[in-house]
């Protein structure tokens, strides 16, 4: 009998991630959230590249934006999975 966790989904060549924009990233993207398809495997860096193509205004804040994946700080070389939620966080402050 097969364990479901052992089933390999190699045939999946596309993943879909939810992208959310906060602060000025929302203005630059002219959207609060969207779903982006990506060719698998895909890294955060690849997603960034696609998002910048789609929303060129984001380039203005590219260097200062930080990325959360599923609520955790992520490096650009982190690999994304189908269904991941990626948040773009520009510099903000508060109390």
């Amino acid at each position, binding site marked *: 009998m097969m364990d479901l966790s052992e089933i390999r989904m190699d045939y999946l060549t596309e993943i879909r991630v939810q992208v959310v924009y906060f602060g000025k990233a929302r203005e630059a993207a002219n959207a609060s959230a969207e779903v982006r398809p990506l060719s698998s495997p895909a890294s955060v860096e690849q997603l960034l590249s696609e998002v910048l193509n789609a929303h060129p205004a984001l380039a203005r804040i590219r260097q200062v934006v930080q990325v959360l994946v599923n609520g955790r700080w992520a490096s650009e070389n982190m690999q994304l999975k189908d269904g991941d939620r990626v948040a773009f966080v520009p510099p*903000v402050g508060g109390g």
Partner: protein
Amino acid sequence: MTLGGYANCIARVDLTREKVDYEKPNEDDLKKYIGGRGLGVKYVLDNGPNVEPFSEENILCFMLGPLVGSEVTMSGRMAVVTKSPLTGTVTDSHHGGWSGARLRWAGFDGLVFKGKAKKPTYAYIENGNVSLKDASHIWGKNVHDTIKTLTQEYGKQDLSVVTIGQAGEKLVRFAAIVNENDRASGRGGTGAVMGWKNLKSLVIKGNIKNKPTPARAEEFRKAVATANTAIVKGAVTAPRNGGLSVYGTNVLMNIVNEIGALPTKNGQLTQFEHADQLSGETVKETILVNDPTCHACPVACKKEVEVKEGKYKVHMESTEYESMWSLGANCGCSSKEAIAKMVDMTNDYGIDTIEAGNCISVTMEASERSLIREKIQWGNPDQMIDLIHKIGRREGAGNILAEGAWRAAKTFGDEGMANQVKGQSIAAYDPRGMQGMGIGYATSNRGACHLRGYTPASEVLAIPQKTDPLGWEGKGKLLTIFQDLHAISDSFDICKFSAFSEGIAEYLAQYTAMTGVQTDADGLMKTGERIYNIERYYNNLCGFTGKDDSLPEKFLKRPGSGPAAGHVCDLEKMKKEYYDARGWIDGVVPQQKLRDLGIIA
């Protein structure tokens, strides 16, 4: 040596004897404790720890730092320092706007009130003089009507009014002191001490021509220019461009929720599904009408909003993150319009919104668990509005809630419901999703507080560097640095948000040029350490020890949700690291440490 910047005048007001004495602040005290929070705590310590908060012996201090009212960017704040009726610790609570600057221009470094007036009284302050006047015609009025009346009497020119509303008069333990810009000294119940003393308001006339004189003018001018450049170019603070300027503090709502650190429904969860509806981004798109500011501040982080029609119709001062959280996610409420209305009400009654929201969320949980008969539903804004009225007037159930969330939870039968430390409720960061905030709440000298040591700067905003909010190692040591730095800015009484773009170098340059004090970065950080330790010493003398540096059990045993799923707060590990970094023994400052810091001989 006469230090620059100071007015060299403290008014000691004996309300019982209706007598005012004026003194020059001790220069050694100024060098050791700066002013604002630091000097206020020194006065509270000198007054003795064995005083009841509601007593003639307790002092209520309105304090300024040497930079207040000057050209220094963001230099408009005032500290109110006393023994808190909510926690029994020393507390200091600050507010912005222009009242701090005007008190300096009126010729003062601070006002210290003792005793109790025989009848309702207000203090009129102008040109280095304090006179006590009959307040019977404004006693019973809320903040907005009080300010309107006094403004009509004295004229708007150069005027600030700092006042309590009905909540302070009725000794609501978390009553606030509010000024003409609706800026509040919210935490710790300073408004209740003011009300107990029958002191209704301060009326201050101060003209900018009396702004402080620096010891070294040219050096001061350059230091101010450098600091101002950091603010206007800073990614967070740049006017009309930085995140704080464009969206206000409420830009944090979505981000803190995203990492799973937004206390929701009284801490039952750590994410709120409707967070975006309350966020700074959504407010900007819908009800935002203006960006007010404070003295000498280009950031303009306040977000004035207007709800044009409907039962929550209101035009109010600002929807801050903490208030939108405490009356929003914390209570399961997703209506930004209703919350704007509620915040305006709490400003008018003169109530701490953080504590008020926690009182209401405790009541909601008590109702859910059938600990009380009343059905108070999660997220029901009309019931919340009714409770705020009752709290402000101490009517019905409001009489219980006016004692604070912890005492209310005890009355309802389970004090563990209250998310509090030393009797004061937590703010908008859940320790299960943000470990640094856990040790921060636990060791705060004024009860649970996010501002004593703002570790979210590092854990969420990557300032000065990024740390993992779910990691505990290093957070104890990190917290001591934030606590000491904020003790410095609170004692200068410049806005804490300056730290998003300025650092110790900018603070040092402005302080030494203004005052003429000879010190360096290490010396200034040592001053911050001294201030944090003198507060702890006072609390130790009041009986507080390491056992009081605790957190409610839910944060230690019940995991968070969302990204914080499976995580609890690793408090004990951080406490050991923190006490080691502080040099304390079980939360107590050793005598040698007090001598080393020059707090005792």
